């Protein structure tokens, strides 16, 4: 019987190994300094150029999204833990619903409010969509970390005469910081790979742009559009090179998050 279980694991490993192999071997051939310092050609079927605008766009939009999602997420989590009761149950339910939303529906929501109101696509709209996607993981991670704090810390703070808000700001949040930071890293690693929310919010851009009020290119978007044109070898190669870059970025944040978790659990159980 354990043979079947091992077989199941092996079956799951095959696609992982295959995709790792393909992305690395097909992507590495395209990667050079130009790939990171130049923008893609207007015509995707033409060879050459790079993915600079996509990398910068992804970093800028995800960074901005984190800037929105982390404070809001912290506030929501603190409210849930501190006030609790019916309001907290309702809010946690809404957060759970948000977490289960298909990411393309998030894109539609942001389109209906932000893009229509602005009259055009923009990196800002893309950031807002990514922020909505990042919000549930941040809230859940923060809440969990705050709930894991030992009672003695809270009681000690109360005994010293600290008010609740001082306790949160000076003691609870800093103590829970590494766990919260881990949650943020994992949320970021997820948001970096999202394509669907960007399709009709930031739209994409062939040129280099730092301007959030303009359409902005993102790495997943670039991969998607080149994949659609992958009949052309140049587009296929560019797609794999960009995919390799994207996977490297996601792994970076993912592993950083895991490393921080492992660091805070010296016994290494689980």
């Amino acid at each position, binding site marked *: *019987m*354990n043979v079947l279980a*091992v*077989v*199941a*694991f092996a*079956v*799951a490993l095959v*696609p*992982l190994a295959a995709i790792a192999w*393909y*992305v690395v071997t097909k992507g590495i051939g395209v990667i050079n300094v130009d790939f990171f310092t130049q923008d893609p050609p207007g015509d995707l079927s033409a060879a050459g150029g790079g993915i600079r605008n996509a990398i910068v766009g992804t970093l800028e939009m995800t960074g901005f999204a984190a800037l929105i999602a982390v404070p*809001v997420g912290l*506030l*929501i989590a603190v*409210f*849930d*833990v501190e*006030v*609790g009761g019916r309001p907290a149950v309702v*809010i*946690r*339910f809404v*957060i*759970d619903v948000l*977490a*289960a*939303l*298909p*990411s*393309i529906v998030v894109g539609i*929501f942001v*389109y*209906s*409010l932000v893009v229509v109101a602005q009259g055009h696509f923009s990196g800002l709209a893309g950031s807002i969509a990514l922020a*909505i996607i990042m919000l549930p993981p941040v809230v859940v991670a923060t*809440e969990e970390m705050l*709930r*894991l*704090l030992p*009672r003695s810390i*809270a*009681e000690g703070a109360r005994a010293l005469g600290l*008010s*609740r808000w*001082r306790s949160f700001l000076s003691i609870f949040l800093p103590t829970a910081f590494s766990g919260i930071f881990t949650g943020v890293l994992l949320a970021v690693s997820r948001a970096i790979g*999202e*394509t*669907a929310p960007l399709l009709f919010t930031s739209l994409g851009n062939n040129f280099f742009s730092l301007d959030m009020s303009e359409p902005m290119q993102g790495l*997943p978007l670039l*991969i*998607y559009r080149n*994949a*659609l044109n*992958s009949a052309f070898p140049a587009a296929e190669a560019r797609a794999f090179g960009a*995919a390799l870059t994207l*996977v490297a970025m*996601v792994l970076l944040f993912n592993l950083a998050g*895991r490393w921080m978790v492992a660091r805070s659990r010296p016994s290494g159980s*689980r």
Partner: protein
Amino acid sequence: MTAQDSPRGSLPDAPASEGSTLLRRRGLTGDRVFRTATGAAAVLALALIGLMAYDSISSTGPVFDRFGIWGFVTGTRWSPSFTIYGALPFIYGTLLTGLISVVLAVPIAIGIALLVTEFLPRRVAGPVAIVVDLLAAVPSVVWGLWGLLVLVPVLRPFEQAAAGSIGRVLPFLGPPTPGPSYFAAGLIVAIMIIPIVAAVTREVFAATPRLQREAILALGGTRWDVIRQVVIPIGRTGLFAAIILGLGRAIGETIAVTLVIGNSPKIAGSIFAPGFTLASVIANEFNEATEELHPEALIALGVVLLAIAVLINGGGVLVRRRFEQGVRLGR
């Protein structure tokens, strides 16, 4: 782990009512401000998202006026150039690919969960879990790229063989087999949901009461007896919840599906035929939707997808709560 199922935490409860003697006497208005401020932030943020939902749903008015809700949901024709819109081919595609992905992923996920909780020593189980989670770290668009350029061509001879043999008897395994298909999409999505289903199933199996486990072993049972008699029956509800969770993720998958499903807005009998899902048609057509009512119809499809997702995930949460109640009552 959802936000709902952490037990009420270890931070001592704040005084329940705002007018409590403690606050009033010590004059801790700072705390009242703190609670109102965080509450206001939470409400504002969620209200903003609610506003977005409202804007989206209300923009679909013209579409539902023209076809009626029932007419739109059961309509089988999708022809933007004739301003005819029906959601059924996409609902069919979404449910079919969801079903295929669950059928393919769940046995694998159960096998992995059993491997980790029953068969492997602790030290190896950790790295195995990490490897499975690496599957989850690969972005959807990269799976789609690989699926389109590698998996689909590799699958094609097998699909043709199946269509030529069993396909003659079972039409849903029959021709056509152009490559991109419901099956290819279901397979890619299966790969993508294995980690989450395996992770939840692992939690479920790990929650099996030790007493029951050891009782079977004391009676001379093998590991397999423990699994068959204790782990799986007790974990039945949780397992069901894990499957629903996977299904919920599966129907929301967009980009990987768009790249391998073949983009055909017709209901096809064979799983090897090209098709569309609710999510993938929106991704595919939205940016070029210039015909009359086309964008609104696509948003309406999004609303349908939202409804299905809420139904499935809501059902899953209810099932999961029941499972956790069972664990707490010490079944």
